[in-house]
């Protein structure tokens, strides 16, 4: 075991939802905590902190990644999109809209991770089959809904996306 080291603070700037955001944080600050505690973007949820549940999934340069398995300092050169960047109550993104229509959430804890994951998935696969939709969400855990309505939401989101474009 190595000797404990003194905490060192670093200036970290990350582009989040198109805005450069800055904070002075320890090197060990996880991206998930940077978003929530330092930037006040509490839409990104934290469940397991070891990559299994998917609640903390954000888009890094458009690709879904676990915010609990990245350090804020490692995100510096990258563009991060959180659930806050995917729509508002007044102007919901297609995936958010689909979740409300299809009853894709109950407590909503897992929802931000599903929405980011599905948003990226539909970019690659705009017309998924039900099986593909099911596989696309297999890396995210939901304790409430039993997944049926989330699968419906993926398919509905694909329709909404097509209608809007």
């Amino acid at each position, binding site marked *: *075991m*190595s*000797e*404990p*080291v*003194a*905490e*060192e603070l*670093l200036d970290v700037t990350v582009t989040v939802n198109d805005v450069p955001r800055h904070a002075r944080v*320890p*090197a*060990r600050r*996880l991206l998930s*905590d940077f978003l929530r505690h330092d930037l006040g973007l509490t839409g990104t949820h934290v469940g397991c*902190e*070891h*990559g299994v549940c*998917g609640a903390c*999934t954000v888009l*890094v340069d458009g*690709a*879904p*990644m*676990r915010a*609990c*398995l*990245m*350090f804020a*300092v*490692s995100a510096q*050169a990258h563009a991060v999109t959180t659930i806050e960047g995917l729509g508002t109550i007044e102007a919901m993104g297609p995936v958010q809209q689909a979740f409300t229509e299809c009853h894709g959430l109950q407590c909503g804890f897992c929802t931000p991770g599903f929405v980011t*994951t599905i948003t990226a*998935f539909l970019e690659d696969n705009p017309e998924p089959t039900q099986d593909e939709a099911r*596989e*696309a969400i*297999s*890396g995210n855990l939901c304790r409430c809904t039993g997944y049926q309505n989330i699968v419906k939401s993926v398919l509905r989101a694909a329709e909404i996306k097509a209608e809007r474009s």
Partner: protein
Amino acid sequence: MKPAPFVHHAPRTVEEAVGVLERVGHDGKVLAGGQSLIPILNMRLASPAHLVDINGVAGLDRVEVTDDAVRVGALVRHAGLESHEAAYAASPLLRRTVRHVAHPAIRNRGTTVGSIAHADAAGEMPAILALTDGLVEAVGPSGTREIPWHDFFLGALETSLAPDELAVAVRFPRLPAATGTAFAERARRHGDYAMAGVAAAVAVSDGVLTSARLSFVSVTDVPGVVDVTAAVHGQAPEEVDWAACDDLVRAHLTPESDIHATAEYRAMLATRLAHLTLARAASDSISSSAGGSAA
């Protein structure tokens, strides 16, 4: 939980990274994709004082396809290898297997070299390095060396990489012409670590089997290869009894019980998956050589 404090190093070159590793010695750890290391830090199973984050090191993010091999740099993400068309053409087994590594969100960040350096026998890519007779390119203070897979994997999560060495790439040699491949695994949930997984490489020539080899995921301590050629040599793929390989396979396995599966169940799965992948690899060999002669 949160990681303990550490000093973050962000080298820009391989030499700089090796320099830091040499200076900090056993107190240092390389950070690549972090998809295995950060969970360990979050759970405080390790608390290295120095992390050498190689994500800013230039030149490590390339897949190179040569006449002999597919060379994968230390910053190539699993997803990058998965989508690489030339790598797929040269060695279809790579894509067939890497898509079983975790979920897309993990593959977008985790690196193939990192999973080999992590040397988890529950990982898919160490098994493929073994089956393809691959090697690891490492750079240390005294220069570059190439480490064949059988000298690289020493034990569970243990490799022959020195603390001051950086794995800069791995090379997966192309398999001989007319070799067919297949990969299959069973996991509790698609994308989770497999309860058992098997990769097969089979060559069929003039309608009969001339070689058959297997490597395993999650049922051995260390990645390794079983040559089952003796049990099936000279037989036609459609007539062969794959169960003839079972004794060789079972002798190689060292499965363990955990909350997901008992050791017996894992061994049973591994032997059944061996039959399945051997048969698939044999038909892959036939169809790939048919495609080859038509071209």
